[in-house]
């Protein structure tokens, strides 16, 4: 399975690579600490005693090295020829071609005719340089990233409530002291298993339509109907007040806006909440009691609550609940969001988001533009403004006024974007699609030019984990011959587009030094963080400003203890109202479909589907369905079913789950082709965050031998 070690190691002219390094798992936001080494010609991984994983790893982490040497690893640039096929090409040929076409397109249609799509798995250095490249070398406003599909709702809600957005405003290890933790739409037992080590002590209240492995461990499992979490949160707020559990002193002294939020909760009596959500009144009451009686309690949200066309409002409703109970800004209690992607945190604050500049600065803020223009040595007026959010960007590709060229770094939207069939059509309508990846992902296979880039164990850099701690990623290996780092690719393109080379350093450390200056004074301030401090083992959580003299800033493991980040130091209740999902089940499409992750795979599966041990566990798309619903649909356990929405159809293996609501089916979104769960999901977006509605689609399930249209093929 592993390629010859000699090949991996043969890097002419460079220093011999280290025998072992301390780094982190390439996948999720938990960023488990690992030690990489070599044994018997293979890369070995062992978990380290890093605080978030405490010596644990999930199967994805254990098997991550296999992707380094996967058989179809991209090892040279590919260019689509006149025959329509991708064929190997040299780097100069590929980059010349890309730059040439970009210039043509820009000349003919203006700078916004070129778009950039980034990823939440890119290192801080890459995310930063990608944003800079888009704004300076391409001069386009059309840049966004797949984190929009992941963290944007929680980000919008946290900014509104607290004045800053850091997934967990406290270290993960604080959870270990909690008495009660409410998890709204989060399934860490599958998506980040070692996190459960910190949730051992706490009584868990899990809100999820499915009985997930996390729910199995819960003291209480509440199963709201898909798309009704917001109503549930409003109902819990009402009960908090009616049952005399409002933290009056906290609300008075540390918050604003309670009254307006409370007024929105007034119609959500426990009985009405029960009727809309399906969560029993007694369970609502018990959940509130547990949270209020706990000495230390947390409210945490995950994608289940966030990936809705009302995701930001839903998170706001849970934050309001946490504020009413007096949890945030207290040592040992709080609100947090469980970030999904490896660098979901760093990726969203360093400038690849359509409306942001590095350091969590807003691109329409004149002072922020002035600051960045100075750091970058350009005129503020030259910086483009805010662009459309990820789905809007993808939806506009190849349309009049939309981008005609797209550069994709660290994302696989053919599988991971909502309404994937439509998005694939939009990608196909481009004049030029360029994809930088290390494997031939489904998106790379559509590209006109594919650029092979380095993987996690072959590169240096930093990531920021779910608790806002800046981590070092370290290289054990050099990239295979023919493969380049993303920073090098960006410089190569920038220079060809007429930019000075020194604006695009290829050394991660150099980029980080610039990033420090760029984020100085911003909400996410990295200016006091350095490779030296990180390499010395310091645990640094942003904000960590540079201090002109005296001892260095220790970082901020716990935010808000002295005050929230709004100018008046108070947290803000945000008044929100429940509304229906964009689409509800009806006669033809009678079931809710909800999508998500399974333990053995990560995101679009481009990496994990290449690991034998993981595909052995989860080889193919499946649909989880209640036995009653299966019987009605005429599908049987182990058989194939077609799941149909207004937008597309998915073929998946049937798994019966008695614990599921009878009105809901679940599909993992990790699989390609006609197993893409996102063929079902739609393009309804959250007005506050741009988050698509991944978690609610109306579908029907039918046996696979039924030809669409009704005829049964025998």
């Amino acid at each position: 399975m592993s390629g010859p070690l000699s090949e991996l190691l043969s890097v002419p002219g460079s220093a011999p690579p280290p025998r072992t390094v301390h780094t982190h798992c390439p996948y999720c936001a938990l960023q488990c600490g690992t030690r990489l080494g070599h044994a018997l010609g293979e890369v070995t991984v062992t978990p380290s005693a890093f605080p978030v994983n405490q010596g644990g790893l999930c199967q994805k982490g254990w098997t991550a090295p296999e992707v380094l040497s996967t058989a179809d690893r991209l090892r040279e640039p590919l260019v689509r020829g006149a025959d329509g096929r991708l064929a190997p090409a040299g780097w100069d040929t590929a980059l010349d071609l890309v730059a040439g076409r970009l210039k043509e397109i820009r000349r003919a249609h203006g700078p916004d005719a070129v778009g950039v799509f980034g990823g939440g798995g890119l290192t801080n250095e890459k995310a930063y340089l990608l944003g800079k490249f888009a704004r300076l070398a391409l001069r386009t406003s059309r840049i966004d990233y797949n984190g929009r599909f992941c963290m944007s709702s929680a980000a919008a809600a946290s900014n509104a409530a607290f004045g800053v957005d850091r997934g967990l405003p406290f270290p993960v290890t604080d959870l270990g002291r909690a008495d009660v933790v409410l998890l709204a739409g989060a399934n860490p037992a599958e998506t980040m298993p070692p996190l459960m080590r910190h949730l051992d002590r706490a009584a868990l209240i899990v809100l999820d339509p499915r009985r997930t492995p996390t729910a199995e461990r819960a003291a209480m499992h509440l199963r709201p109907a898909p798309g009704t979490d917001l109503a549930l949160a409003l109902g819990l707020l009402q009960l908090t007040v009616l049952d005399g559990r409002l933290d009056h002193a906290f609300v008075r002294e540390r918050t604003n806006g309670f009254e307006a939020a409370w007024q929105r909760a007034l119609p959500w009596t426990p009985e009405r909440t029960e009727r809309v959500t399906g969560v029993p009144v007694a369970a609502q009451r018990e959940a509130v009691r547990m949270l209020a009686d706990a000495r230390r309690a947390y409210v945490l949200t995950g994608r289940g609550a966030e990936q809705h066309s009302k995701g930001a409002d839903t998170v706001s409703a849970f934050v309001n609940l946490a504020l009413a109970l007096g949890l945030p800004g207290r040592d040992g209690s709080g609100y947090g969001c469980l970030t999904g992607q490896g660098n979901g945190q760093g990726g969203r604050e360093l400038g690849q988001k359509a409306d942001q500049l590095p350091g969590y600065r807003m691109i329409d803020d004149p002072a922020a533009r002035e600051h960045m223009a100075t750091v970058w040595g350009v005129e503020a007026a030259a910086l483009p403004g805010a662009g459309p959010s990820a789905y809007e960007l993808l939806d506009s590709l190849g349309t009049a006024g939309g981008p005609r060229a797209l550069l994709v770094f660290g994302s696989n939207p053919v599988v991971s974007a909502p309404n994937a069939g439509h998005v694939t059509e939009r990608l196909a309508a481009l004049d030029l699609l360029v994809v930088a990846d290390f494997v031939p992902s489904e998106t790379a296979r559509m590209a006109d030019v594919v650029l092979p880039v380095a993987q996690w164990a072959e590169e240096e850099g930093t990531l920021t984990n779910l608790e806002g701690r800046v981590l070092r990623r370290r290289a054990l290996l050099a990239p295979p011959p023919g493969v380049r780092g993303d920073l090098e690719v960006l410089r190569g393109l920038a220079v060809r587009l007429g930019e000075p080379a020194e604006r695009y350093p290829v050394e991660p450390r150099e980029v980080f030094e610039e990033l420090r200056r760029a984020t100085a004074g911003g909400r996410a301030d990295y200016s006091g963080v350095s490779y030296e401090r990180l390499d010395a083992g310091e645990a640094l959580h942003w904000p960590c400003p540079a201090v002109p003299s005296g001892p260095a800033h220790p970082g901020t493991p716990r935010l808000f203890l002295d005050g929230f980040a709004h100018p008046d130091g108070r947290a803000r209740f945000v008044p929100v109202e429940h509304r229906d999902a964009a689409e509800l089940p009806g006669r033809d499409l009678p079931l809710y479909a909800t999508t998500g992750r399974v333990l053995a795979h990560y995101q679009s599966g481009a990496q994990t589907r290449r690991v034998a041990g993981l595909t052995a566990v989860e080889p193919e798309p499946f649909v989880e369905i209640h036995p009653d619903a299966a019987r009605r649909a005429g599908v049987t356990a182990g058989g194939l079913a077609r799941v149909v929405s207004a937008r597309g159809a998915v073929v998946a293996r049937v798994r019966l789950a008695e614990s599921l609501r009878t009105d809901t089916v679940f599909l993992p979104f990790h699989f390609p082709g006609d197993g893409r769960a996102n063929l079902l999901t739609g393009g309804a977006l959250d007005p506050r965050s741009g988050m698509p509605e991944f978690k609610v689609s109306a579908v029907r399930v039918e046996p696979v031998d039924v030809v669409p249209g009704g005829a049964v093929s025998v």
Partner: protein
Amino acid sequence: MKRILVVGNGLAAHRLTARLAALGHDGPVTVLGAEPHPAYQRTLLGSVLGGDVPASALTLSAPPPGVRVLTGVRVVAVDRARRVVRCADGTRYGYDTLVLATGARPTGDVHTLADAARPVRGRVAVVGGGVLGVETATALRRRGHRVVLAHGGPYPMHRHLDEVAGQLVAARLESWGIELRLGGYVPASGTLGADTVLRCTGTVPETAAAREAGLAVRHASGSIVVDERLRTNDSSIRAIGACAGTPDLAGALAQAETLATLLTGGDTRYVPLPPILRPRVPGLDIASLGASGPSGAPDEVVTFSDPARGRYARIEIRDERISRAVLVGLPEGTAAVAQLSDTGRPVPEDRLALLLGGRTKAHGDDPAAMADETVLCHCNNVSKGTVVRAWQHGARDLAALAATTRATTGCGGCTAAVRAVCAALPVPEEVG
């Protein structure tokens, strides 16, 4: 520009004006409310009475900008020909569309914020053991009052509950120290020896002005007749909420939302949800679903009775759907049955799981009895067989097992199971 005039300033009116604004209605909107307060959440009056929250906490959000709300103004007549309403104080207001949202009129004493805020002293007699009476009695009892509940029927809520359910409710109320006087008529002047008497004898739709204007009202209930677009028999007059016979908050809000959509050019219909009676009695779940009159014969009746634990259900099923149900003491079942009734979805095969809330706890499997293929460590997909083999090959503690199999290295949740599996294994003979 189209002038909308709303009579009544309750929940339905409040939601209507909020939705009109959200949907971009730009004509003038005026609300005339008889009560002196801004709009408030009437259904939480019990919480004020019970002392859980002050009356001021029930105030709903201020009307959207541009909406004029006049309080303390009672409409007494509608001149349909001129499209003008006249108020008790002599003022007049014109309209292009008139919305009646006048709610219901109490036949007793607990209906308004003013009622709820009135001091209640000493021993209290609650007269009327319907939903409101039961809620009021328990709220006052929670607050520490001595309470006697007098009801003309054989048991509380007798119009909505069957005998078994009713007796369970009665027993529970008594267990809380509420004294019940059942089956007797209490004259209007009767005090039952109490310091305070609260009559909770129900409500009737408030339709005085509508009737006077000659709008069609239903004979039996007295509510205003509306079609699915919420139009009365005068197409420029609409009616929503309790005055149109809508029994509950959810229905009143849904009508307000439907009407807002219609008045802003949208096309929609109001489809009533099946009625659900769900009294607010913390600690006791009571629900009565479905029409109270006769309905078609059910295909199937499911009954569940567990009097020792205060649990009871009777569910009528037609065409695999719930047609009627009474539940007491079954919180999970109540929530599930209500959702099935609202969505018209078929009833699950497993009727008992429906009532009891499905399997509620993971069963702890006996490790010795587990099959070898059973996965112990899901994080690393390690089966019992793999652990057993590793143990037999000398991995005799957790660290060694983790190193060889990776079991327990993910979330750590299988540690106990791995230990138990190994503890059940015979120590093999050492082989040379």
